[in-house]
C-alpha cells in the first residue's frame, strides 16, 4: 500500500496538467470532476496509507521515485517520506483540500475561467503535498516555491483588476524574501552535512553541533526566515491580508490547508535543529506571541469579512509558532489541524455569504443573515465558537488550551508568553463574535439572492462536525486524559517536560482561559449586538480610541513602513537609472571621439593656402627644434 505514496502528490499534478492542456475544451462538469476528483482520490489513498500506518506503526515509509540529479556527491532524490508528522499534514491537505474543491465547484460555477481555476487549485494542493512529503530539503523547497507560485496565480485569479495582480505580486515577492533566507540556510546545511536529506541531517546535527552553537543558531534563524515568510508572521505578514483579493475558496485553501501552515511544518520538521538553537526557539515563541497580539488587534478593527478572517489566521498561526517555540511540538501541530478545520469552515461560510450577497464583503452591508441563511449561520457559529475556543464543546478549546498551558508550564515557557497568549485568546473571542453579531444579527441590509446549493453546503456541514469532534482525540490530562494525537506524533516530535510546581494548578488556568473566552464573547455582545450604553459609546467614540483604531486598521503601519523602507527606494533607484548610467560612460566616450573628430575636421577646409601654411609652420617648428642645442 505504501507503494502508492507517490500517487498522493502525483494525482493533483496530473489533474492540473490535464486541465492546463485540455481544460478549455472540456465541459464544465468534467473539469470539476477532474479537479476535485484527483484531490479526492489522493485523500482516499491517504486514508488507506494512513490506516496501514496506524495499524503497522512503522517509524516511516520512504519511496524514492527517481534521483533528481547527482553532482559531486550531491544527490537529492524525488523521494517521499511519510511519518506521523507528514501524515497529519497530508491528511489535512488532501481532505480539507478536497472539501474546498467540492465547494469551489459550486462557488465558481458562474466563472469564465473555470478550468484555469481548478488547474491552479490542483497545482496548489500538489505542491503542498510535495512540500510535506519531501524527504530532502531541496524537494521541500520545490513544493515551497510551487506553493508560492500557485498563491500568485490564484490571488491574481481575477486578473482584470490590476489591484489583484499587485496583491498577487506582493504575496510572491514577500514570501520570496523569506525563501531566500531559507535557501541560504540550505547552503549552510549542505556545506556542513554534504546532503540535504532531512533524516540524515536530523540524525547528524546533534553530533556536529553542540547545543547553542553558532552555526545551529544561524541555520535555525535562516529557516525561521523562510517559515515566517510563508506563514505570514511578523515581520513578513503584510502579504496575507492582501491575499484576500483571490476568490474565497482560494483564501480557504491558503489559510487552512496549504501555504501558511508550511512554515509551521518546516519548523516542526527540523525540530532537532531548533532544539540545538535555544535562541532561535525563543525567537519563534516571541514572534508567535507578538504576531498573535498584533494580528488580533488588527482583526478587531476590520470591516471586510475576509480580512477579519485573514488577520485571525495570522493570529492563530502565531499560536502555533508560540507552541513550537516553547517546545510543545505536538500541541502546535494539533492546533494546526483543528485550525485547518474551523478556518476552512469559516472561510467557506464567508464565501457562501459573499456569493449570496453578490460579492459584498463589507460586514456593514450585511446583518440579519441568521434567518436568510440558517445553515450557513449555524455552521459559521460552530466555526466561530471553535476559533474563540469556547470551553468544552469546541475543538479549538482543547487545542488552544494546550498551547496556553505549555506556554506557561512548559520548560521553555514563561509568564509573559502565557499572558500574551491569554490576552490573545480574549481578543480572539471579541473579534470573532463581533463578526458573528454584525453579520448575522441586527437588521438585514442587503437582499440575499443566491442561497448556496448542496455542493457548497455539504462541505460546510462536514467541516462543522470536524470542528467539534476533532478536539476529542486529545483531552487534557486532568480530565479524561486522552492523548491519541500526541502519541501518534511521539516518534517524530520530542515530548515536552512540564514544570512540576505549576502542574498542580492546571485546572485553575483552564478555568481562566475558559472565562476569558466567555468574557470576550460577552463584551462583543455588549458592543456589537446590544444597543451601546452611553458610557460604551463614549469609549468607542473617544479620540484615542479612534486613533488606535485607525492605526490598527492599517495593520500597524507595516505596509507603509515597508513601502518607504524598501519599495520606494528600489523603484526610485530603478527609475533614475532607467537609462543605465554606465551606458552614458560609453556614450560619453563616443561623444568625445566625435567632438575631437569635429575639431580636427575643421582644419580640412579645402583652402590650399592653409595647407601650405601648415607645411611651412611645421617645417619651421621642426627646424627650430632640431637646431636648438
Amino acid at each position: 500500500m505504501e507503494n502508492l505514496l507517490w500517487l498522493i502528490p502525483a494525482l493533483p499534478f496530473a489533474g492540473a496538467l490535464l486541465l492546463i492542456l485540455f481544460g478549455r475544451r472540456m465541459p464544465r462538469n468534467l473539469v470539476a470532476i477532474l479537479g476535485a476528483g484527483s484531490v479526492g482520490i489522493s485523500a482516499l489513498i491517504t486514508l488507506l496509507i494512513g490506516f496501514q500506518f496506524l495499524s503497522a506503526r512503522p517509524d516511516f515509509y520512504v519511496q524514492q521515485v527517481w534521483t533528481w540529479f547527482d553532482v559531486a556527491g550531491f544527490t537529492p532524490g524525488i523521494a517521499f517520506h511519510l511519518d506521523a508528522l507528514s501524515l497529519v499534514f497530508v491528511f489535512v491537505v488532501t481532505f480539507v483540500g478536497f472539501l474546498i474543491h467540492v465547494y469551489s465547484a459550486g462557488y465558481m460555477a458562474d466563472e469564465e475561467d473555470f478550468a484555469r481555476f481548478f488547474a491552479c487549485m490542483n497545482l496548489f494542493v500538489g505542491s503542498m503535498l510535495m512540500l510535506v512529503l519531501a524527504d530532502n530539503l531541496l524537494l521541500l523547497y520545490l513544493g515551497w516555491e510551487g506553493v508560492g507560485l500557485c498563491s500568485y496565480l490564484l490571488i491574481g485569479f481575477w486578473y482584470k483588476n490590476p489591484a489583484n495582480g499587485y496583491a498577487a505580486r506582493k504575496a510572491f515577492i514577500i514570501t520570496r524574501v523569506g525563501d531566500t533566507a531559507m535557501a541560504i540556510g540550505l547552503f549552510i546545511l549542505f556545506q556542513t552535512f554534504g546532503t540535504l536529506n532531512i533524516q540524515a541531517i536530523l540524525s547528524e546535527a546533534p553530533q556536529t553541533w553542540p547545543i547553542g552553537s553558532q552555526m545551529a543558531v544561524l541555520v535555525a534563524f535562516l529557516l525561521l526566515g523562510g517559515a515566517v515568510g510563508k506563514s505570514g508572521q511578523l515581520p513578513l505578514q503584510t502579504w496575507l491580508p492582501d491575499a484576500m483579493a483571490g476568490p474565497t475558496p482560494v483564501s480557504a485553501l491558503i489559510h487552512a490547508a496549504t501555504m501558511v501552515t508550511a512554515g509551521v511544518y518546516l519548523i516542526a520538521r527540523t525540530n532537532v535543529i531548533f532544539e540545538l538553537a535555544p535562541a532561535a526557539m525563543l525567537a519563534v515563541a516571541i514572534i508567535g506571541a507578538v504576531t498573535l497580539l498584533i494580528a488580533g488587534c488588527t482583526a478587531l478593527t476590520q470591516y471586510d469579512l475576509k480580512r477579519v478572517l485573514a488577520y485571525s489566521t495570522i493570529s492563530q498561526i502565531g499560536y502555533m509558532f508560540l507552541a513550537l517555540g516553547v517546545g510543545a511540538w505536538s500541541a502546535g501541530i494539533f492546533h494546526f489541524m483543528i485550525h485547518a478545520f474551523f478556518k476552512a469552515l469559516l472561510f467557506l461560510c464567508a464565501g457562501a455569504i459573499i456569493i449570496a450577497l453578490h460579492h459584498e464583503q463589507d460586514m456593514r452591508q450585511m446583518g440579519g443573515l441568521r434567518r436568510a441563511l440558517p445553515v450557513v449561520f449555524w455552521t459559521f457559529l460552530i466555526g466561530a465558537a471553535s476559533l474563540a475556543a469556547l470551553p468544552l464543546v469546541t475543538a479549538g478549546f482543547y487545542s488552544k488550551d494546550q498551547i496556553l498551558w505549555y506556554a506557561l508550564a512548559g520548560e521553555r515557557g514563561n509568564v509573559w508568553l502565557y499572558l500574551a497568549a491569554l490576552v490573545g485568546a480574549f481578543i480572539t473571542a471579541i473579534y470573532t463574535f463581533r463578526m458573528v453579531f454584525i453579520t448575522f444579527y441586527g437588521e438585514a441590509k442587503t437582499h440575499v439572492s443566491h442561497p448556496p446549493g448542496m455542493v457548497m453546503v455539504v462541505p460546510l456541514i462536514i467541516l462543522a462536525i470536524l470542528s467539534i469532534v476533532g478536539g476529542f482525540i486529545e483531552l487534557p490530562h486532568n480530565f479524561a486524559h486522552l492523548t491519541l494525537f500526541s502519541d501518534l506524533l511521539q516518534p517524530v516530535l520530542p515530548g515536552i517536560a512540564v514544570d512540576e510546581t505549576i502542574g498542580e494548578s492546571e485546572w485553575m488556568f483552564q478555568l481562566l482561559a475558559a472565562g476569558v473566552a466567555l468574557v470576550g464573547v460577552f463584551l462583543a455582545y455588549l458592543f456589537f449586538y446590544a444597543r451601546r450604553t452611553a458610557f460604551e459609546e463614549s469609549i468607542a467614540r473617544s479620540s484615542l480610541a479612534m486613533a488606535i483604531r485607525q492605526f490598527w486598521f492599517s495593520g500597524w503601519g507595516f505596509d507603509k513602513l515597508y513601502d518607504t523602507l524598501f519599495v520606494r527606494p528600489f523603484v526610485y533607484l530603478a527609475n533614475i537609472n532607467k537609462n543605465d548610467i554606465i551606458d552614458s560612460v560609453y556614450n560619453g566616450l563616443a561623444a568625445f571621439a566625435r567632438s575631437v573628430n569635429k575639431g580636427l575636421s575643421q582644419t580640412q577646409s579645402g583652402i590650399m593656402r592653409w595647407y601650405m601654411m601648415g607645411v611651412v609652420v611645421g617645417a619651421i617648428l621642426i627646424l627650430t627644434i632640431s637646431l636648438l642645442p
Partner: protein
Amino acid sequence: MILAWILIILMAGGVLAWIAGRLNTTLPRWIALVATFACLCMTVYLWIELPASTDAVGNWIMRFQTPWIPQWGISFHLALDGLSLLMLLLTFFLGILAILTSWREIDTKVGFFHFNLLWVLAGISGVFLTMDLFLFYFFWEVMLIPMYFLIGIWGHENRTYAAYKFFIFTQASGLLMLLSILGLYFVHGYSTGVYTFNYFELVGTSFAPEVGALLMAGFLAAFLVKLPVVPFHSWLPDAHSQAPTAGSVILAGLLLKTGAYGLLRFVIPMFPDAAQAFAPWAMLLGVIGILYGAILAFSQTDLKRLVAYTSVSHMGFVILGVFAFNELALQGVIMQMITHGLSTGALFLLAGFLYDRLHTRDIRKMGGFWTSVPKMGVIALVFVMASLGLPGLGNFIAEFLTLVGSWQANNWLTVFATLGLVAATAYSLRIMQKIFLGNTANHPALADLSLRELMIAVPLVVLILWLGLYPQPVLNTARASVTEQLQAYTNPKVAEPAQAMLQTEASDSLTIHTLKGRTYEPK
C-alpha cells in the same frame, strides 16, 4: 571528420541559401532549415552514441586535425568533449527556432539573411569546437560580422547605432584576446622551443605571475565583454532590443554563451594561479551584475530591453560560478548556459510574437492579453517562472548548484547573489503583470499562437521542464569536461572534503541510518 562536416554544411548551406535567394524567397528558408536540422541530427547522434566513446579517448569524444599553416604551428584542429557537445546541441536547437521564427518576420533580402544566420551558427559552432587558438580567433570573428549585418540590416528603428556598438565592443575586446593569444604563443615558444597554437600543448604552459595575469587579462577582456559582465554590458541591451527576433535569440541564447565557454575552456585551465588571484574580484563583478541587471530590468519599458537586462543579471551567476572553482558551481554554470539559452530565447521569441501582432515592444501599450491569448500566456508564465528560478524548471537547478558551489568559495558574495533572486521575482512578475494581466479594455483582441508558433514554443517548454526535473543526462555529459577544467585546482587540500562528502553519500545510498536509536530503513 563529422566535426568538419558540421562546419562545412553550415557554411555551404549559407552560400547556397544566398544564391537561392535570387530565385525565390522560400527556398533559402528550407535550405537553412535542412542544413541546421542535419547538424542537429548529427550532434544528437553523437550524444546518443556517447557512452561508448567516452571511455575510449578520455574526455574527448572525437578529434579532427589537419595542418593548415604548419610553419607557424597553425592547424585546422577540432575536438569535441561533453561541454562542446552540449553547446552544439543548444546551438542547433536554437538555430532551428531562429529560422522558424524568421519564416514570416523576414521578407527582405531573404537569401542574404539566411546566409548570415548560418554563418553565425557556423562561427559559434567553430568556437565551441576548435582547439587551435588561431582558428579560435578566426571563428570568433566569423560569428561577429554576420551578426553585425543581422542587426544592421534587419533590425528595428535604431539598428545602425546598435550594430556599431555591438561591433566595436566585441571587436575591440577580441583584439585584446588576439594579443594575448600571440603572447601565449611566444611565451610558450620561448620556453619550450615549440611554436604552436595547439590548445593541448599550450594548456600546461607555466608563466611568471605577472605574465600570466597580463595574458589572462586579454582573454578576460573578450569573454567578459561577450558574457557580458557589468560594466562592459552596455552593448547588449541595444543589440538585443534592435536585432530581429532571430538575432536576439541567437545573441542571448548563443553568443553570450561563447563568453562563458571561453572562461571555462581557456581561462580556467590555462591560468590557474592568475584566475585564483582574480577570483574574488570576478565574483564581485558577478554579484554586481546580478543586482545591477535586475534593478535595470525592473525599470525598462521596452520588452526586449527588459529581457536583455535579465540576461545581464543571469550571466552574473555564470561568472560567480566559474570563479568558485568547484564541480557543483561549474555544473551549475553549464546548466545555466543551457537553461538561460532556452528561457531567454523563449522570452525573446514571445516578444517577437507580440511584435508581430502589435508592432510595438513598449509594455506600457500592452496589458490584459490573457483573455485573448491564453496559450501564449501559459507559455510566457512558464518562462517568466523559469527566469525567476522556480524549482521544477531548469533554471532553478542551474542557479541552486551555482549558489551552493559559490557558497563554498565565498559566503558573503553568495548571500548578495541570493538576494538577486528576490529582485528577479520583482522584474519577472512585472513582465506578467504588464503584458498578460490587468485590464483589457483598450486593447484589440489578439490572435493566439499559430501552429508554427506552437511548434517553436512547445519544445522549449518541454525541454525546460525536462531539465528541471531530470537534468542528469546533461550533467553526466558535462561531468568529464568539468573535472578536466578543474584539474589544476584539485590539490589535496580541496580533495579532502570532497572525499568526506562522497563517504556520507555512500552511506546514503545504503540508506541505513541510525536515528535516535532506531533503524532508518526506507521501504
